[in-house]
């Protein structure tokens, strides 16, 4: 199996090292790096905005570009976190704590260097795990039928709904709204038009791209306009010296990077968890195993290496369920799943058999991309930081205009722009009320498959709903979904029980 994977990987390199794909990889990681640096403009918006322009491109080139943006953004996010304590991404929040303290001590260069090296090491390790772990999972997933897929989607949605904010109720509402949006248009089984209100534009359904750009990019700009959080702030960039880390820095960062690579990969594989949670857990782990936990928060190199390594490793992990099961593990991979479908590919176990050049080309490109990122980040950090001089108002106008062009280019129809406008307002409201948006996007992307598999299962069982409970894999997946949904309540119950016992003593 390992030899087979290695052989396939070599074939993947022959695809990834084609001049055209190298260019897309470079473009992706560079764009991702810039996007990661820019506060308030995350990789999900960048990936969503770029999808319309993927038309006509070869699927492998397109996905290399989009994946490059994803993991490139994880690298870029650390730059502003360390220099300015302004995390470009939520996954860089933990890096900002000690990274900025190190910068204040005049060690910004070392922190940036360690961040780049740890990201490279963990990113590469996670791609190695992906190389050998993904085919195993894909082989297992071949035994899945419609009921298993339905239960898997229930589990994925439950995980994203609960883990994205920890509030199962809000996550659940967001996920249900996503599936409701997916029911607009023709019925997947019978072709009956539904919920189109007489509009021919709604007969084909609402494209996930319109929703993704509306609720992420437009809503983000609207929120920044209201809170004025980034307005008028012309971000300056400080000086840094000693760009390369010392031998001691490398020594103390070695084990945190290795630990974080495992943590990040495993958490990345779990649907709904993703890079942010991985970086939080890595920080907590390093603090727990450290000989000087009291120094965490005052500028400790391990506290930069760990979270940075974890958030990069999580991107490789998130690719596993996306490629092998067709279930995205994060909002960026949810948008990427939509992109793959637009390009005519159906991610899942068969993708490895039907399109090996695509899958292994992508995996190989991630090795290449990580090397490119290291080369970009070490000597070109100064140039990336210059992007911060771009004033926010111009950025905001640019994002609004690019969103509009992106959505218009998708179907060449103005109606989509109105839908995007409405969803931008909805996204803003949800953001204000702390509703997670990832479950909505994931549910929208999976919605049609969700309905198709549920109804197919019922056709197979002749209307017997117990089909989902009588098949072992399906039952196990539903039990895990239930556990995820009721986990916060179980935890509360255990805590209250313990508190009661302590009080009784």
């Amino acid at each position: 199996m390992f030899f087979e994977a290695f052989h396939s990987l070599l074939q993947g390199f022959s695809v990834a090292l084609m001049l055209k794909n190298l260019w897309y990889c470079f473009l992706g990681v560079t764009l991702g790096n810039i996007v990661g640096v820019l506060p308030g403009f995350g990789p999900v918006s960048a990936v969503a905005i770029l999808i319309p322009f993927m038309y006509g491109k070869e699927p492998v080139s397109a996905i290399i570009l989009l994946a490059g943006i994803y993991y490139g953004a994880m690298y870029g996010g650390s730059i502003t976190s360390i220099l300015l304590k302004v995390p470009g991404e939520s996954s860089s929040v933990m890096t900002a704590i000690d990274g900025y303290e190190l910068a204040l001590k005049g060690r910004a260069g070392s922190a940036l260097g360690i961040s780049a090296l740890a990201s490279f090491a963990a990113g590469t390790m996670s791609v190695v795990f992906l190389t050998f772990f993904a085919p195993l999972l894909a082989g297992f997933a071949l035994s899945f039928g419609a009921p298993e897929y339905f239960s898997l989607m229930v589990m994925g949605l439950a995980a994203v709904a609960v883990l994205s904010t920890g509030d199962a109720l809000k996550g659940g509402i967001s996920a249900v709204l996503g599936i409701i949006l997916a029911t607009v248009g023709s019925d997947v089984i019978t072709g009956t038009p539904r919920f189109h209100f007489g509009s021919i534009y709604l007969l084909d359904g609402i494209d996930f791209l319109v929703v993704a750009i509306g609720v992420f990019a437009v809503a983000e700009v609207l929120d920044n306009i209201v809170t004025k959080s980034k307005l008028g702030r012309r971000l300056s960039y400080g000086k840094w010296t000693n760009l390369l880390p010392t031998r001691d820095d490398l020594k103390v960062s070695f084990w945190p990077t290795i630990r974080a690579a495992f943590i990040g990969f495993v958490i990345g594989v779990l649907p709904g968890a993703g890079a942010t949670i991985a970086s939080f857990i890595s920080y907590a782990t390093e603090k727990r195993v450290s000989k000087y936990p009291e120094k965490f928060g005052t500028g400790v190199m391990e506290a930069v290496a760990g979270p940075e390594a974890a958030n990069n490793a999580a991107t490789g992990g998130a690719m596993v369920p996306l490629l092998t099961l067709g279930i995205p593990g994060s909002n960026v991979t949810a948008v990427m799943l939509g992109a793959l479908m637009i390009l005519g590919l159906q991610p899942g176990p068969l993708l490895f058999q039907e399109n090996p050049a695509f899958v292994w080309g992508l995996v190989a490109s991630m090795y290449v991309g990580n090397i490119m990122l290291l080369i970009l980040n070490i000597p070109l950090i100064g140039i990336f930081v210059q992007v911060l001089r771009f004033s926010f108002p111009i950025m905001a106008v640019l994002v609004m205009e690019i969103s509009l062009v992106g959505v218009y280019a998708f179907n060449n129809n103005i109606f989509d722009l109105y839908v995007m406008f409405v969803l931008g307002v909805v996204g803003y409201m949800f953001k204000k009320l702390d509703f997670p948006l990832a479950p909505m996007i994931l549910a929208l992307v999976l919605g049609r498959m969700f309905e198709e598999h549920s109804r197919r299962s019922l056709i197979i069982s002749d209307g017997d709903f117990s089909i989902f409970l009588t098949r072992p894999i399906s039952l196990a997946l539903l039990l895990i979904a239930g556990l995820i949904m009721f986990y916060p309540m179980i935890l509360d119950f255990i805590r209250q029980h313990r508190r009661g016992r302590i009080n009784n003593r």
Partner: protein
Amino acid sequence: MRRGEITCGILMIGLAIFYIHLSWKFPIGFVKGVPGSGMLPFILGVTLLLLSVSYLLRSWKRAPSGENFWTGDITSLAICLIFYLGYVASIKWLGFILSTFFFGLVALKIIFKMNWSTSIFSSIVLTLILQVSFYNLLGVPLPGGLSWRILSFLGFLPGG
């Protein structure tokens, strides 16, 4: 924020009832062994209704936090939304170039309070960057409208 949450809860209950009403028009049971088109929507509508009621009750029970939903620069938000809607509505007949230029100009001048020269210069540069990147380089067919007619008339386009 509590008031915002309660309003949101009520709106979602309304949406759920409306969706159940719509899904009722489709077959909810089995038709010749095939689950009807309305089955999943009906289940989704009921689920949304239950979740929304739970959300409303939870928000209702919570003590007011003192935080207002409508904090921040709501006027700028309203202006931005109106201008954006105007941008979308005018893009077909005004064309991409003119509508993008005007949107950039009013957004930078009125919402972001930048000075006239910066606003005009930035809007022109942004419009040109977008037009060249998307229309000329990526081949996206952007709406021509009045912008193209003016450019044609001025002789910048063939057939003008």
